[in-house]
């Protein structure tokens, strides 16, 4: 192991940062360790923000993540890093203060993509949802009993917010340009079932629609105008247009980074613009883009909780000096709670050419969909059928033949329904 006088710095103070710092200590790194975060909070859990925090069941401040880090870690919170100078191995803040490092973990995650018109985006009643403060503000707005909540964008967070509004008894409209909710991730074949579920819960779903502009009165959002001329009166608009990676501070560092992430090699070290790894710097979590061995080395940047935790651990071990036997290759997994319905997935659906329903009936609201590409299983999605997912995840990890045979334990005599997945 390298001398323990080495200084380690973790930039970002989210889940990947926390698990990375813990892993460094667990792997025996005993030098000074500093965690720098832009937000004034210790690492907290984001998934509850769009669920129980919005429901008012838990306060936004109760989501601090459990950790086993001790007093031998220095926290510098509420102080974003503005620039990285790799030649002098120094981090710079906007106020001119600096922080030297010998080993660096980049874990700055993502932020919510803002509404494209900044003036409209600043109207009171218009929200995005990424952090604790966002969730607390949106919760207060929902608790005030708005006439209607407009959710723009039917990705996971948009669908969660719309379902939750219905649980709270609030009228909710969900506007999505694609043909179904979650179409980009799940395809329209499975997305249609999610859409039917949302509609069944009273969400006013406007697929194939786009918001053109947000109208304000006296600085307050009052209605949205769709491109087809429809108006939707509402007091709250939630912008759920996905995320942008926090990589601006890497501009000029010579690292290969853009709004899609910072590039890593298969081991987890970051790459410079020449494609050479920097052995002092690793990246993990939402901000990291890396070649995934399970998907032919395709570069992916994942925005999933388990990935942030696992890649954080991997990067921490790497920076502590551990030599990994093999590249980071964890099967991507996520979950989403839509009201009281749980959607989970294993693998990446991108590039799927078919989808098979192997378990349960899609119409019943509980099923497993397996995605195939060129005759191999590449992903599986469960809706309220989590117990069947691990077996399917193994098939995905093994690249088992598609359509899968003999998995439909609940209906051995019936054939498996195979459809076009319906990706845009």
């Amino acid at each position, binding site marked *: 192991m390298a001398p323990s006088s080495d200084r380690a710095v973790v930039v970002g103070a989210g889940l990947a940062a926390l698990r990375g710092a813990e892993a460094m200590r667990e792997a025996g790194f005993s030098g000074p360790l500093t965690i720098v975060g832009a937000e004034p909070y210790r690492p907290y*859990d984001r*998934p*509850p923000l769009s669920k*129980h925090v919005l429901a008012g*069941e*838990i*306060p936004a*401040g*109760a*989501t*601090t*993540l*459990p*950790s*086993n880090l001790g007093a031998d870690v220095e926290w510098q919170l509420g102080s974003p890093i503005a620039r990285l100078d790799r030649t002098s191995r120094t981090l710079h803040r906007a106020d001119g203060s600096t922080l030297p490092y010998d080993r660096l973990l980049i874990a700055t995650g993502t932020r919510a993509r803002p509404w494209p018109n900044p003036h409209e985006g600043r109207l009171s009643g218009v929200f995005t949802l990424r952090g604790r403060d966002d969730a607390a503000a949106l919760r207060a707005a929902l608790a005030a009993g708005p006439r209607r909540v407009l959710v723009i964008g039917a990705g996971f967070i948009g669908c969660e917010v719309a379902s939750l509004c219905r649980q709270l008894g609030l009228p909710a409209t969900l506007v999505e340009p694609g043909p179904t909710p979650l179409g980009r991730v799940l395809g329209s074949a499975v997305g249609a079932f999610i859409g039917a579920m949302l509609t069944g819960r009273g969400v006013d779903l406007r697929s194939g629609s786009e918001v053109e502009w947000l109208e304000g009165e006296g600085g307050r959002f009052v209605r949205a105008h769709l491109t087809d001329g429809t108006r939707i009166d509402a007091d709250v608009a939630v912008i759920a247009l996905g995320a942008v990676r926090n990589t601006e501070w890497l501009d000029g560092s010579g690292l290969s980074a853009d709004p899609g992430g910072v590039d890593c090699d298969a081991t987890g070290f970051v790459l410079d613009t020449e494609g050479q790894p920097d052995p002092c710097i690793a990246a993990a979590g939402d901000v990291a883009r890396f070649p995934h061995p399970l998907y032919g080395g395709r570069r992916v940047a994942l925005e999933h*909780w*388990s990935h942030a*935790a696992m890649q954080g651990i991997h990067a921490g071990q790497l920076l502590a000096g551990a030599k990994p036997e093999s590249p980071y290759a964890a099967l991507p*997994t*996520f*979950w989403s*709670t839509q*009201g*009281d*319905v*749980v959607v*989970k997935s294993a693998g990446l659906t991108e590039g799927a050419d078919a989808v098979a329903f192997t378990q349960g009936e899609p119409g019943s609201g*509980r099923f497993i969909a397996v995605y195939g590409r060129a005759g191999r299983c590449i992903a599986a999605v469960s809706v*309220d059928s*989590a*117990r069947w997912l*691990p077996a399917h995840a193994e098939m995905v990890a093994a690249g088992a033949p598609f359509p899968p045979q003999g998995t439909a334990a609940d209906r051995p005599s019936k054939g498996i329904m195979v459809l076009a997945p319906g990706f845009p």
Partner: protein
Amino acid sequence: MSVPADASSGSPPGLRVSVDLNLCQAYAQCCYAAPRHFRIEGHEALIYDPAPAAQDRAEIERARVACPVQAIRVEDPGRGT
């Protein structure tokens, strides 16, 4: 759920709990062990209290140990982790 609306009162430092909901299979053992802090909604949506009070540590520890897939993580500042 028994979370105080404002956790900044002078009470002893509470626990911190997180559940890896990818691992969780809704077996509900945690709900039997600590019903005030874990519950299942619908078929398999686990809802948990991320900040239980320090005096509930025995219950929370029972839940953590009961989980068949070890999805529950607890930090107890009053006792180390």
